[in-house]
């Protein structure tokens, strides 16, 4: 069932890819006989063939995850999204502290431990990456201090 659903989505996405390959991509002038559109056309056909095959004979895969697991995965994705959104505005230290604390609380750490873990990761992580390794990380809120 899950496989069929996936194949259906793949057919739709592959259909769009195919349409673009055959109807949209055009070079105003080109030096080689194939041009920019032939290769995507070949790939599109292989992809559609694979999708149709899976639609016709799907594997039996059961995607039964408990509701609590789904909930946590959703939370995880939201947290990752928030981390990405706040990475530059808040800076590495603050956003990492927040993210690590919340993430480890979600995975069952005690609050105090989680906050200690978050602060350590944020501060030591920045120290190692910025001062020791010379990597470029956003300073954000703490820019005046760093």
């Amino acid at each position, binding site marked *: 069932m*899950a496989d069929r659903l*996936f194949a259906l989505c*793949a057919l739709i996405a592959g259909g769009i*890819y195919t349409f*673009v390959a055959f109807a949209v*991509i*055009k*070079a*105003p002038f080109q*030096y*080689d*006989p*194939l041009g*920019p559109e*032939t*290769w*995507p056309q070949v*790939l*599109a056909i*292989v*992809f559609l063939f*694979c*999708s149709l*095959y*899976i639609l016709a004979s799907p*594997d039996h*895969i059961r*995607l039964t*995850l*408990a509701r*609590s*697991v789904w909930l*946590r*995965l959703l939370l*995880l*994705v939201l947290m*990752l*999204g928030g*981390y*990405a959104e706040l*990475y*530059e505005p808040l800076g*590495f230290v603050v956003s*990492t502290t927040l*993210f*690590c604390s919340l*993430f*480890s609380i979600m*995975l*069952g*750490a005690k609050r105090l431990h989680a906050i200690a873990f978050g602060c350590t*990761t944020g501060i030591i*992580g920045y120290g190692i*990456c910025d001062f020791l*390794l*010379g*990597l*470029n*990380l*956003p300073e954000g809120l703490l820019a005046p201090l760093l």
Partner: protein
Amino acid sequence: MTEVLSGLSGGFSVALMPLNLLLVLIGCFAGTLIGALPGIGPINGVAILLPIAYSLGLPPESALILLAGIYYGAEYGGRISSILLNVPGDAGAVMTTLDGNPMAKRGEAGRALSISAIASFVGGTVAVILISLFGPLLAKFALTFTPADYVALMVFAFASLSSLVGKNQVKTLMGATIGLMLATVGIDANTGVPRYTGGVPDILAGFDFLVVVIGFFGMAELIHLVEQQVSGKLKLLPIGKSFVSWKDLMLIRWTILRSSIIGFVIGVLPGVGASVASAVTYGTEMRMAGKDREKFGTGDPRGLAAPEAGNNAAAGGAMVPMLTLGIPGSGTTAILLGALMLFNVTPGPMMFEQRPEIAWGLIASMYIGNLALLVINLPLVGLFARMLTIPQKYLSPLIAVLAFIGVYSVVGNPFDLFLIIGFGIFGWILRKLEFSLAPIILGFVLGHLFEDNLRRALSISRGDWSILISSWESIGLYLMAALIVVLPVVVSYRNRMRA
């Protein structure tokens, strides 16, 4: 032969420079640590650490030496979580659990760990000796390849990939196609026409290699780990005092040698890596054991030594097509290949002549690395085993933090942070549907090479497609591709008829 020796001596002069020597040791050590973490395999370790290694500003040969050290270090460390926890770090370590974990349950974990360390060492060393002997020869042969031959080689690579990797061949092929399709996004280099960019300026230059790698092998793995963490507890077995004995070594010596050679050959096949090698070597030893075969799976040293020698030899073997043809031999070498391209080094047959410090430096560093791994693994195995006790609740956030640091410090664009999350979710769904992710990265890395060679070949022939089958090399490769796809089908059909 003199060529090999002079190449090697040049390589050792690169690998023995203090910086590079230090990097080999750091790579091996960090790799073993990462490999020992439950659920994280070599490919994830290399993926997560690649951008950091890149942004350190090392010269290309040093960065590659570091990454390769992490690669075979992790291949080495993977056995620790397989034996003590019964949790393989990646597909290549699955076979190790079959006999390794029963031994640990009997209280012989120390014996199992030391046997596997020696098997891994021999496997890795045999592989690197064979690389030094055959790599330059293959590179010389590959110099004669025309664009049309490269197209044939690519077809062969994808044929062997879809025939031997994963449960469902169509899904493997589809995964590779997804990778190839992802590579078509961005401005076409030959004509300047944008393809599949949807008008988003951030992807006009195409998806960044690092973003795709971190998405599929960092974030997808993270989501998978969190999902696993919620369900079930893991039980760590104690190491104890037992150690490998002379009798053990005598029992397994031929097993190790056979498995090393088989593993190397499988590793050389483009696209097929450690997971296939460990399965094949285990199966071979079981068949050769005759009456003893019932002992396999209950903690037989041979069943432990075979896959360990096999997968380490395959990890080395997979370097051969990468160094000589520019075609990766496994998912992880696909990432190393991408790393070389980040440094503007074109991997391929010219590398042995034009950039000998990279090709030979890497090979020489592998000799040193293998020895270092054996030396740090026998006494320090207890320390590495402690890695298994790091609670997942702290480990998982660190993976995300490392992935973000990596992507941001190299690309410096917050848009890419969202892209890796997107690829991560997509990769996790694919994994749930029993897709193997390695073909995607192979497809992505080879996408431009494949298309460029096809277009170049047809430019040479002015649009005549028959150029693709105009040389013996390419015809041979197409025949081999057909054989490798058809043979397993025929064999399984015959087995079914007999049953």
